[in-house]
């Protein structure tokens, strides 16, 4: 469009001076900015205030967004300009006049008195002019935080509650809920212990069963079923722990490695004042080790023994397992070879470490002893073996055997004193009982008596003769029970210790257990405190391998189920 702008100003003499400005552009901009086609300074005149263009043969002016035009005395947003119309921008007045030839529009402009300071409005000179809205930013941030860190966790918790998710206290590892139900992990105050993470699968309500209520001991016992109190209610010191809850010591969401307290102070703060004071693990600071032994209380009834076993910690420990055994003899390789008993024995020939790495698989006649010690009773038929562990069955077996020989069942070895060798203890073994059942039975009874009183069973067992004529019950041996756990209040890892030192094989074992010098089964081969202190000490000692109380002891004793290491989870 072609615009003629006729500027009318008064000179010093008060005469009107006209100066024409010709503008050629598609559209003409009005505003306070210097780069506007028509720069107009004044109150409330924006940098780009209005736009003038020719549309369908008519001149139209439109105010910018948020601006107003003063058109013929009224405020409008847009207007179509006709001859004589007047526009006002602050103190400026523009009037439409007849356009000369070659112009689309002609405007007469009377500039007003303008304060030059208003030029500042032509520019964006404040952060307020940049479109930044602190209030909008504040609201946006607040809403984002509220939604992400507030509404999302609450929603996920609610969804889990109403989605029929499996109980987090159910046994076994719980699968993680879907992501949408895990937003409340944003409310975790710290990392969860790995075991709890696996067991709960991100279901906070497994422990936090009621919102806004502290985790209860029952929530812990839902999984830790075999955890007992440190001392029971009858204990004189029970009052010291009566008000304590699991949470008082086991702080979850703190540092996972500190969930189980390991500091010695946990123990010695109280036990330094006890009857047997403990101040740490060092000579003089820790009491001597007193192994617990199974002690039999034997009652000899008319026809049998009745034995009750009790675990005791005698001041002078002597084992009474009712077994005759010499560790030294069995570990004497030269003797083993001389007696042609086969390969020399090692500790591991009989002692097999149990999966818990602490205890050993119970030794049985069948698994360990019978490899060398058979229960044959007739050298002519060494494959014939007496049963083990059932005195009545011994006689039954022998009776059957001798009856068979008397009546020719064993034809190869006729009961006629044939090829049988005489053995020193078999003085009357070759009596002939051919066809005589009573003789055969008497022979079986005599052999039974020999087994229980002279050779065979009594090699290892303590046998006794009872009254009565029934050879099935006349001879008995005292039942054997080996102590499986000498320190039920402590735990120990054999696997770590066997591989820890330079000694290997039996040398590693006898370093602590003096089995190679033990000739009687009453010897208790458990190491003493001095032996442990050769390598260990507490945190204040200079030993290579410091021990804490909890390295060997558990705060929570074995619970009713009798499980050692009672802090384990029972699923």
């Amino acid at each position, binding site marked *: 469009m072609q615009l003629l702008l006729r500027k009318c100003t008064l000179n010093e003499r008060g005469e009107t001076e006209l100066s024409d400005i010709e503008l050629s552009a598609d559209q003409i901009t009005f505003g306070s900015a*210097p*780069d*506007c086609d028509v*720069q107009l*300074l004044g109150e409330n005149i924006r940098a780009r205030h209005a736009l003038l263009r020719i549309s369908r043969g008519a001149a139209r002016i439109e105010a910018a967004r948020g601006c107003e035009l003063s058109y013929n005395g009224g405020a409008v947003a847009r207007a179509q300009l006709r001859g004589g119309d007047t526009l006002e921008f602050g103190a400026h007045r523009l009037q439409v006049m007849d356009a000369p030839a070659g112009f689309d529009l002609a405007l007469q402009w009377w500039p007003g008195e*303008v*304060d*030059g*300071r*208003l*030029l*500042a409005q032509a*520019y*964006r*000179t*404040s*952060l307020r*002019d*940049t479109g*930044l809205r*602190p*209030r909008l*930013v*504040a*609201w*946006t*941030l*607040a809403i*984002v*935080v*509220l939604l992400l*860190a*507030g509404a999302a*966790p609450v929603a996920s918790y609610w969804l889990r509650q109403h989605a029929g998710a499996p109980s987090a206290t159910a046994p076994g590892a719980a699968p993680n809920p879907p992501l949408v139900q895990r937003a*409340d*992990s*944003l*409310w*975790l*105050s*710290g*990392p969860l212990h790995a075991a709890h993470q696996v067991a709960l699968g991100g279901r*906070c309500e497994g422990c*936090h069963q009621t*919102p*806004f*209520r*502290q*985790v209860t001991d029952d929530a812990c016992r839902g999984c830790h079923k075999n955890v007992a109190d440190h001392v029971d209610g009858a204990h004189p010191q029970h009052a010291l722990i009566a008000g304590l809850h699991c949470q008082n010591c086991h*702080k979850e*969401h*703190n*540092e996972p490695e*500190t969930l189980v*307290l*390991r*500091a010695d*102070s*946990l123990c010695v703060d109280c036990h330094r004042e006890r009857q047997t004071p403990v101040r740490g693990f060092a000579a003089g600071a820790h009491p001597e080790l007193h192994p617990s032994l199974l002690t039999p209380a034997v009652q000899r009834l008319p026809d049998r023994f009745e034995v009750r076993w009790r675990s005791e910690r005698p001041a002078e420990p002597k084992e009474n397992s009712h077994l005759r055994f010499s560790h030294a003899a069995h570990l004497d390789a030269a003797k083993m070879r001389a007696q042609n008993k086969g390969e020399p024995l090692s500790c591991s020939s009989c002692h097999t470490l149990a999966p818990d790495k602490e205890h050993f698989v119970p030794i049985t006649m069948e698994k360990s002893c019978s490899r060398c010690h058979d229960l044959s009773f007739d050298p002519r038929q060494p494959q014939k073996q007496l049963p083990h562990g059932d005195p009545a069955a011994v006689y039954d077996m022998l009776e059957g055997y001798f009856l068979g020989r008397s009546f020719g069942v064993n034809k190869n070895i006729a009961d006629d004193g044939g090829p049988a060798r005489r053995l020193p203890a078999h003085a009357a073994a070759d009596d002939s009982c051919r066809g005589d059942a009573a003789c055969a039975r008497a022979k079986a009874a005599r052999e039974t008596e020999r087994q229980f009183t002279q050779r065979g069973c009594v090699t290892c067992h303590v046998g006794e003769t009872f009254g009565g004529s029934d050879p099935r019950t006349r001879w008995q041996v005292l039942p054997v029970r080996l102590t499986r756990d000498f320190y039920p209040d402590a735990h120990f890892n054999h696997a770590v210790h066997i591989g820890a030192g330079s000694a290997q094989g039996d040398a590693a074992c006898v370093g602590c257990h003096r089995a190679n010098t033990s000739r009687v089964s009453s010897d208790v081969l458990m190491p003493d405190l001095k032996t442990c202190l050769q390598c260990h000490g507490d945190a204040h000692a200079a030993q290579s391998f410091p021990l804490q109380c909890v390295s060997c002891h558990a705060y929570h004793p074995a619970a009713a189920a009798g499980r050692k290491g009672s802090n384990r989870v029972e699923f």
Partner: protein
Amino acid sequence: MHESILGYKKARYAWLALLLTLISCLLYWTQRGPQPANGGTWQGYVLGTAGALLIVWLSALGVRKRRYRSAVGSLQGWASAHVYLGVALVVVATLHCAAQFGWNVHTLAYVLMCAVIASGLFGLFAYLRFPRLLARNRADRARDDLFAELNELNELGRSISQLCDPDVRIVTDSAISRTTVGGGLLGQLCGLDHSQILLRKSENSSTAAVPVANRDQRAAVEFVARRIPRANRQGEAERLQHLLAILCRRQTLLRQLRRDIQLQGWLQLWLYVHVPLTVALLVALALHIVAVFFFW
């Protein structure tokens, strides 16, 4: 005599903040034991409560400074306490959480708090340093006065250029109309100058003038300066000399204005961060407290 908010009443709130910090350290120290320090111990709860109350009170400055008739302490005293206790809050909150951080709402609140305090410290620095720079830059004049003078120079430059050759008029007019001051966020904070000028590629060329950069008005000044020796019409050299003086004065004024806008921008900017982050912090703090007791 003007007293800085830092030295208000012999820095009494600095001593209060120091005392608070020492008490907090002492409380934290009593958490020694088998368990690491944590916000869940009684000491942690005490520190957390103190921190939360501090945050709420510090936020209340925004309310207090709008209540001009309030008699609850002087505003300067509030600002002084706001600064010192705000800094002490870093210690209180860090000891409360025992520097245990994670991807959770609790650390979000802590990070927002640190961001608020950092922006506040920048604001303190700005308030202490920039007003002096502003006054020195404007030579103790108001910004509006600088703009009034600029407008005057614009008018004068335009009217003188009307009496010169058309190319001088076009260049002068375009230099004035295409001058930029301030602008967007970066334009204001960095004092950017996107001014342009319409120049022919060569002075003898009859081609249309094209816009080129007129940073710091150098192109306009150089153009007029080069025209002076070639002035051959009567009075032209004087007019060009006068025009050059006007353009040089404009150049100085524009530098002052840009620097003024820049310093003012930095003086305002921290509040654009401090206040919205404070609002977000208050929300995060509330959620932190709810979350702690929801999963108690």
